[in-house]
């Protein structure tokens, strides 16, 4: 049995690398709390997404500044009210201060609301821009990129990483700014009002910082472990769920569950540790403000007695102390969130930075209305540098000819199609259409000439009609139905509950494999291409139905160059030219009759169909 080397160790997903370019790996197998390797660059690029909204963004900062400063003013005003108005029984003064406070609170209210409203708008616009950019970029990447990156991994970038970035843009950036501003503002106010009392209430501060740093470090360590274990659990889950039918078929439910239980229990244990550490920070911060208040009461009380402070000052400090802990607590959280968002952003930028391998050349020409002469000239190709799959291939298809490719699994037939469609580029040699080397042709214009039914039928979770229309977006309903009739798909479609309006489920799983193929054929028929490519297009369709489609197809192929790949020899024996491919080379060529007469590989292949029969039929 020949087979090409589609298996190469290099292709195998290895346990994920922790940083750097997306190695293969399941969804969420990475530690979430990880650092971006280029923090500054990533941050700059992330903030650059807000660039189109810079004026709004600046206004947000303005609002944050206003609301922070005004909030800092009110504790001071209360102190003043106690010392200057209440102590002196000055009712007008008290009323004035109350009115100033009211004005300040209205200001805070307006500024905070405005900040929230504007921020919601610009952060979500920026997110939309980023998602759009990423998606549009994905559309330009070559097939080999998608071969290398498991879908789960790419999906996780577009969902989890985007989530993390969303949080940072919509919340953390302003929180960070407001928090720092509050801290600095409180310190300035406290030292300005009463230097010694301020110094006194800062005594515990360095100690708390150390404690938080200590706990924080342990938190990060155990969180990293936690996230790794979650990654493992999710990997296991993903495989279990996608392989559920096989698990049922082989009654491996118990084994699968036992496997899952181990991972689940591990996550629970490590999770308890990590979360406990993480949640120690708030009480620690709480103690900071409470101890501060106790110090204030003792030291402040003594200072009042000595005439070094006033009651109003103590009240002001009291409120400042309470406010001081909140931003500190937040900053600890923010640090982690921003780190993980930056790591996420870096992964997203990595994709955006991938240069499409098969970019059009600047002087590429646009193909239009080709005759359909296809030539392979000394073509060599391998998916990996050291494994050649197509070896020195030469072939010419004259306009209108039907070329059949026959050969064992893995001989390189689909690869030839992959090259003709420029899903991949040849390593050596050239493929030309009507004399134009396809590397000098715009990819889109090349593919517009081709109508392809791929081996792996893919349908979208939309209606049957829309799936057919995918072949030509401006086709009318009637044209779609005509195409379906030609592909012999109409009978089964009419039997569906809602006919052509029936919604297909994920990847069309509510249809049989053969029915999916019929839809794919209808789609190709509708696209009315100059060159038709059928790669095992009817392998799951029964042969009687195939005979009927064949009639439609041969009408379609008339006057068009066609490439047909099939294991079933009945599918291809009418071809103008049969090419027998083995191990990346053409080993025989000719018509069905010629090849049979040659008594070579094709003859053997053909006869093997009757092998069983000779034993049964007398």
């Amino acid at each position, binding site marked *: 049995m020949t087979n090409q080397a589609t298996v190469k160790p290099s292709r195998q997903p290895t346990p994920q690398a922790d940083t750097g370019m997306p190695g293969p790996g399941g969804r969420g197998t990475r530690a979430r709390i990880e650092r971006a390797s280029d923090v500054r660059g990533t941050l700059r690029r992330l903030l650059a997404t807000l660039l189109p909204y810079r004026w709004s963004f600046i206004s947000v900062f303005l609002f944050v500044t206003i609301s922070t400063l005004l909030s800092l003013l009110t504790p001071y005003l209360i102190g003043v009210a106690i010392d200057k108005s209440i102590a002196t029984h000055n009712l007008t003064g008290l009323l004035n201060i109350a009115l100033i406070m009211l004005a300040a*609170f209205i200001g805070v209210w307006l500024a905070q609301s405005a900040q929230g409203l504007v921020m919601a708008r610009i952060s979500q616009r920026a997110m939309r821009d980023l998602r759009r950019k990423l998606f549009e970029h994905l559309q330009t990447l070559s097939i080999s990129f998608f071969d290398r990156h498991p879908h789960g991994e790419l999906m996780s970038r577009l969902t989890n990483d985007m989530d993390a970035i969303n949080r940072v843009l919509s919340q953390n950036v302003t929180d960070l700014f407001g928090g720092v501003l509050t801290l600095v503002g409180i310190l300035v106010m406290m030292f300005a009002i009463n230097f010694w009392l301020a110094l006194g209430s800062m005594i515990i501060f360095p100690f708390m910082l150390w404690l938080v740093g200590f706990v924080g470090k342990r938190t990060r360590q155990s969180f990293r472990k936690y996230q790794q274990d979650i990654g493992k659990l999710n990997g296991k889950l993903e*495989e279990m769920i996608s392989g559920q039918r096989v698990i049922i078929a082989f009654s491996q439910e118990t084994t699968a569950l036992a496997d899952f239980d181990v991972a689940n229990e591990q996550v629970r244990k490590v999770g308890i540790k990590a979360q406990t550490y993480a949640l120690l920070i708030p009480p620690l911060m709480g103690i900071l403000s409470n101890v501060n208040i106790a110090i204030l009461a003792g030291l402040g009380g003594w200072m009042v007695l000595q005439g070094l402070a006033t009651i109003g000052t103590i009240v002001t400090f009291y409120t400042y102390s309470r406010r001081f802990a909140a931003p500190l607590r937040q900053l600890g959280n923010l640090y982690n969130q921003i780190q993980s968002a930056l790591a996420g952003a870096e992964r997203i930028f990595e994709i955006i930075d991938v240069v499409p391998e098969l970019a059009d050349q600047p002087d590429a020409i646009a193909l239009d209305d080709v005759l359909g002469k296809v030539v392979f000239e000394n073509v060599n190709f391998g998916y990996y540098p050291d494994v050649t799959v197509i070896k020195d291939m030469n072939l010419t298809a004259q306009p209108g000819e039907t070329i059949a490719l026959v050969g064992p*699994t893995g001989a390189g037939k689909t690869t030839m199609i992959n090259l003709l469609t420029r899903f991949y580029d040849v390593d050596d040699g050239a493929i030309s259409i009507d004399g134009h080397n396809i590397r000098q042709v715009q990819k889109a214009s090349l593919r517009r000439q081709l109508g392809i039914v791929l081996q792996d039928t893919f349908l979208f979770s939309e209606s049957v009609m829309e799936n057919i229309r995918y072949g030509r977006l401006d086709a009318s309903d009637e044209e779609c139905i005509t195409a379906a009739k030609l592909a012999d798909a109409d009978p*089964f479609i009419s039997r569906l509950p809602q006919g052509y309006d029936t919604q297909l489920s994920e990847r069309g799983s509510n249809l049989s494999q053969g029915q999916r193929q019929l839809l794919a054929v209808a789609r190709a028929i509708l696209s009315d291409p100059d060159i038709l490519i059928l790669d095992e297009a009817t392998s799951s369709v029964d042969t009687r139905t195939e005979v009927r489609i064949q009639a439609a197809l041969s009408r379609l192929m008339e006057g068009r160059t066609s490439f047909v790949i099939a294991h079933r020899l009945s599918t291809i024996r009418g071809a103008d030219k049969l090419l027998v491919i083995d191990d990346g080379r053409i080993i025989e060529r000719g018509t069905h009759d010629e090849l049979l007469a040659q008594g070579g590989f094709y003859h053997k292949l053909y006869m093997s169909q009757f092998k069983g029969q000779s034993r049964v039929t007398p």
Partner: protein
Amino acid sequence: MKSFRRILSFVSPYRKEAIISMALLLGVVAADLAIPRLTQRVIDEGIQNHDLHTILTTSLLMLGAAILSAGFSVGNTVFSVRVAQGTGADLRSTIVRKIQTFSFGNLDHIQTGQLMVRTTSDVNQVQTIVQMSLRILTRAPLWMIGSIVMLILTSWQLALLMLALTPLIWGLIWVIGAKAQPIFLAVQKKLDKLNQVLQENLAGVRVVKAFVRSEHENTRFDGVNITLMNENIRVMQLLALLIPTMMFLVNIGIVGVVWLGGNMVIQGDLTVGELVASINYLSYSLFPMLMLGGMVGPLSAADASSARIYEVLDSAADVQDRSQTRTLDGVKGRVAFENVYFSYNHASGEPVLRDINLVAEPGQTVAILGATGSGKSSLVKLIPRYYDVEKGCVTLDGIDVRDLPLALLRAQTGIALQETVLFSGTIRDNIRYGRPDAPDEEVISAAQTAQAHDFIMSFPNKYDTVLGQRGVNLSGGQKQRLAIARAVLIRPKILILDDSTSAVDVETEVLIETALDKLMTESTTFVIAQRISTVLNADKIVVLDRGQIAAEGTHTELMTSSPIYQEIYDSQLGGDGGGRDD
């Protein structure tokens, strides 16, 4: 919040820890509430009376309260984390166990991606909110009530002011929460849609490229992207107003207290210390409300997540063991279909299978041919009960398969499914999947039977070659052969090959069949195939047409009796003699 309330039942195994953690919160709140009171003493009794001793002892008391509060809080954390992590692990386990009871029918209706999301991020959402509830949600009312009581004790006149504000604030939370909830659901739906477009574009990348539809896909994505953005902006703007407005209401209260309380102090009805304490209690009462306001979002999200989790948990497994099952010693492998009707969707469409009567004697090979969508796959899937019949019955050795334990039934059935799924791991592990303890010789012999041994040996690591996600690095034909080896290895009494050689070339296929003939003499075999060459040797060939048996017999019999079979034959082999153009 209905779904979320339901999901709280998952907390009950951790009732003890939950109660302890809440009891500890009582301590936290009590200690915290003592502090303004003590401050009042410092001012009124210490400072006003020039009593340094009172000042110092009271501040030491405050220090004690601070440490107590922190200690209780740490205790609360320790216990609440246990509850939350335990609940999360239990939820995951329950969902996964539920999924294990699903039959093919259930799986047809749920997208695998969605199941994944439900077991991971939805559970996470619930776990987070359980954690938050035990730390914050229960603290909020305690704190609220405590500070109101303390405020009343300090000055009932000022307490009235706060009592007037409270309903306003609660009303605000309630209104905004109620408004936000449906938008949260909408956001979630849009997000699902966005992910679906994405997923399809990844999985269907070749089709998108082949038809040059990037522009179309960009537009499609953009449409969802923009609606998602709009919903997001709507909900975020709504919530953006909540916290500032709540704070504003409380701040109005503070201004009121300063003005009113200031007046009272001047009148001599209130001490300065009491005024300060009142202000502090008022801002204390703000705290829990801010917390609650901040939880409107997460709570709505958790409710949505709970609903999604219950969608899984509430779906009844289509196929289950009957309460009374019969056992079967020494399975012989006689399979019979008696007047079987079947449809995937009972409500609509015509039945997929109608009035099927078919007997396979032990050791026989039954081949099933028929047009696309004629019900071939459905027919064989009824034997191991991947689906249940609608009418009639399928029997194994004379016993209705629905009366047999599923485990027993499926242990007797080896199947190579149409769509091959391999697991990550080595080739050996994959072949051994149904019988993890199989010795190497048997693994190799199964691989040889499936004509997979040669290509496996050509890999550098042979049977230890590691397969990637879903075996992406093998060709279609190679994957199918591993699936056959996997089915053969369990030495089943019933072997089902569901079009499992469609990507294998004819020559190899014949080799596989010959090997199977030799190895599986004891097994009743069902073969679904498109090629006549595959079915030539079968003891019995069944031709299905639109869900009914159109003909049954051996190749020779059918060549004379069944026009459909002849047509199939002609379409493949018959053309050789004459008109090759159909």
